[in-house]
């Protein structure tokens, strides 16, 4: 039981931190790309959209090659650690968060943007209003990002190494239990995974729907 608790904690820490980092980078990036007009913007958006389908195993492979002892970042000694898992999962979640944010920003009424600017809002105020307006989509962005990384097995397996008590997360734990013929334990972990997904999504949905209830 203790072991399951450990696995759940590792999963939440790794995927939670990855989502936070992906959000902190992806949301501002999405706002900037969504609002501005520059050469090659369509190409960039197409690229980000492609990134939504980034296969986790491919991300895992690249991170392994970069962070392995023989790789360019090998001196950090980070392969087979939670940090490496966070890096891989951030790369997986980032395009999702960014792409959804871009889509949300583009739906905002241009009139509102013009008014906000003409009323003399500071950069920070402007940013806040934009986020407020695109709140629904940005929360969808976070849910999509979290859903993709909490259920992802390819990258965490490769860069984390599924080390017992250290880098085993729910998905790699399911794989390991299955490999050992312990189907019951695998199912328990699967149930826990679904429960966590539900709780996190419920929380995000509550935040998302909070104000719209008044309408």
């Amino acid at each position, binding site marked *: 039981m203790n072991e399951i608790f450990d696995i759940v904690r590792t999963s939440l820490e790794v995927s939670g931190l990855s989502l936070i980092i992906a959000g902190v*980078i992806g949301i501002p990036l999405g706002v900037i790309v969504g609002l501005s007009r520059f050469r090659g913007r369509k190409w960039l958006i197409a690229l980000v959209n492609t990134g939504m389908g980034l296969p986790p195993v491919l991300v895992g492979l690249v991170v392994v090659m970069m962070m392995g002892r023989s790789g360019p970042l090998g001196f950090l000694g980070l392969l087979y650690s939670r*940090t490496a898992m966070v890096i891989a999962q951030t790369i997986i979640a980032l395009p999702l968060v960014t792409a959804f944010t871009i889509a949300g920003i583009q739906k905002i009424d241009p009139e509102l943007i013009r008014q906000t600017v003409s009323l003399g809002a500071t950069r920070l105020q402007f940013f806040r209003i934009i986020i407020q307006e695109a709140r629904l989509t940005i929360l969808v962005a976070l849910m999509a990002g979290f859903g993709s990384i909490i259920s992802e097995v390819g990258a965490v397996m490769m860069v984390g190494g599924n080390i*017992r008590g*250290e880098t085993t997360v729910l998905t790699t734990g399911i794989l390991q239990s299955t*490999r050992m*013929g312990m189907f019951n334990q695998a199912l328990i972990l699967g149930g826990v995974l679904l429960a966590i997904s539900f709780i996190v999504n419920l929380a995000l949905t509550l935040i998302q729907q909070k104000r719209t209830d008044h309408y």
Partner: protein
Amino acid sequence: MKSITYYLLLTILLPALISCGTNVDNKEIILATTTSVQDSGLLDVLTDAFRKETGYKIKAIAVGSGEAMALARRGEADVLLVHSPKDEETFMQEGFGKSRATFMYNYFVIVGPPDDPAGCSQTASAKEAFARIAEKQANFISRGDNSGTHKKETALWKETSASPKGKWYIQAGVGMGQTLLIAGEKKAYTLSDKGTYLAFSAEGGKSKLALKIVRDGVPDLKNNYSVIVLNPDKFPKINPAPARRSWVNLAGAQAFADFLVSPATLKLISEYGRDKYGEPLFYLMGK
């Protein structure tokens, strides 16, 4: 715009900050190992005991023997626990290993459908059993993943001079447990290490396989496990790394190899699995 730049910087720095806490530590060694040792549960028993005795923490990466040696060739491991004798010899000849000790063994088993259509149970060796499977073109599932078990299977086919080709020969490319499940579903034969087979067919387990052992205990199914300490001179430090001359943690790797062949550990190994399966899963060399 200033705040965005700040956030961007923060997120780039954050992983670096975390990494300070998890810096390379001489009390940590990376063990690349075959899956059968982990899947049978023995590895956990060994690493726990090793940690208690020496304080070394083992990061065990369970992959096939072939992949474990490939990792080691790139210097991604300190010590290996593998079962692929031919490849191990090549590995040593190439100078990647500093020392190698074969310290335990068990037997592969040939498992197949309970009615044994190829009649493997009447054979006196694995070679003969394989020849019969090929002759009858009975379904056979191959691991197909360069693991120690796959290497053993390939070697056995070579001995029979029957070429495993055709619709009956299925290359799965997955781990042992899954291969067994596929064999059960497809009424096929396969070669398995005994530990994984026992774990998957355990009484009361939800995963009861429609398979039985059709051939085991014959000399050509012997399965030797070795521990290999990596040669640090092969992996000189190319990047600025902490305190160590080489990437390889020789002291830790050597401590683990010594631990494995110590009398107390050998006793632990020879008794492992007896309470659960009524027989040990691994035997000591020379016994």
